């Protein structure tokens, strides 16, 4: 049962509270999705909070919010707050928003891409 091994474990809420300054992801102004691609627009600023600096460093190439959560070992709600802050500062930008409705052209691109795997 590979899944069961890590399906449940506990994480310190206190740690997340400190990292995000006690804010939750739902307050993030931008609608970030797990698959939103994030890319850096600057170098990590000197003295930047380590978590934020890590995001700026990791996003030199486009990286999804989901991958960020995995590398940082932080939940989505915390990463969303940090990314939103970095966006506001102009340190990162998001490249991709999930299309509200899957259109025909996009689905054709998906099919073509899968065919060529």
């Amino acid at each position, binding site marked *: 049962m590979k899944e069961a091994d890590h399906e*449940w474990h506990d994480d310190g809420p206190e740690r997340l509270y400190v990292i995000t300054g006690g804010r939750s992801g739902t307050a993030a102004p931008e609608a970030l999705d797990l698959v939103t*691609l994030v890319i850096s627009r600057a170098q990590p600023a000197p003295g930047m*909070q380590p978590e934020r600096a890590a995001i700026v460093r990791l996003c030199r190439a486009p*990286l999804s919010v*989901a991958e960020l959560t*995995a590398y940082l*070992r932080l939940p989505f709600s915390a990463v969303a707050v940090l990314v939103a802050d970095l966006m506001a500062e102009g340190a990162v930008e998001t490249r991709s928003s999930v299309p509200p409705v*899957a259109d025909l052209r996009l689905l054709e691109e*998906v*099919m073509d891409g899968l065919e060529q795997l």
Partner: protein
Amino acid sequence: MDSNSFDAVVGPRSEDLLPASATTSVKVVVVGGFGVGKTTMVGAVSEIEPMTTEETMTRAGEGVDHLVGVPDKSETTVAMDFGRISLNDRLVLYLFGAPGQQRFWFLWQGLFEGALGAVVLVDTRRLEACFDVLGRLEEGGVPFLVAVNRFPDAPRHSLDEIRAALDLPEHVPLITCDARDRDSSRGVLMSLARFLHSIALTTEAS
């Protein structure tokens, strides 16, 4: 991980970096019960080693008490595996394996929002495990297909029998697969994409 250890966070291997041209991402959710093969399927088609993302459960409530081994904590974290497929220079598909049990539905809101669609993975030995999932997806208007993961020791029912047992409407595709096999799992995603395309065609025509 204490705060300073973020300085040492190791990012993607160079061969796992997305090209700078990647601009659009889409997601598909593979949902099913424990041990049905979600992680296996994600791993079979992913171009990167499957990764894990976490969500925090803040709502203490019924149906979770017996699972939580840390009774003093009001937050518990649940993990989801995911993988990635670069479809072309521009477009990236993320595949999430989501637990189907009702107690995990708090995860679903953000997960299914914006998803192209879902694969409901079922094990014929435990068909009842997906009843709730099917109902929930229908309610939520998430397009999905059902893929039967053929376990070697599972009884061989015909697809018609399975469709009847699941009370699955005619328009919902029902296929079989071997989640361990890359081509088979890719075929499931292709079937889903074709199904979504047919829905989009119908919508566009009306």
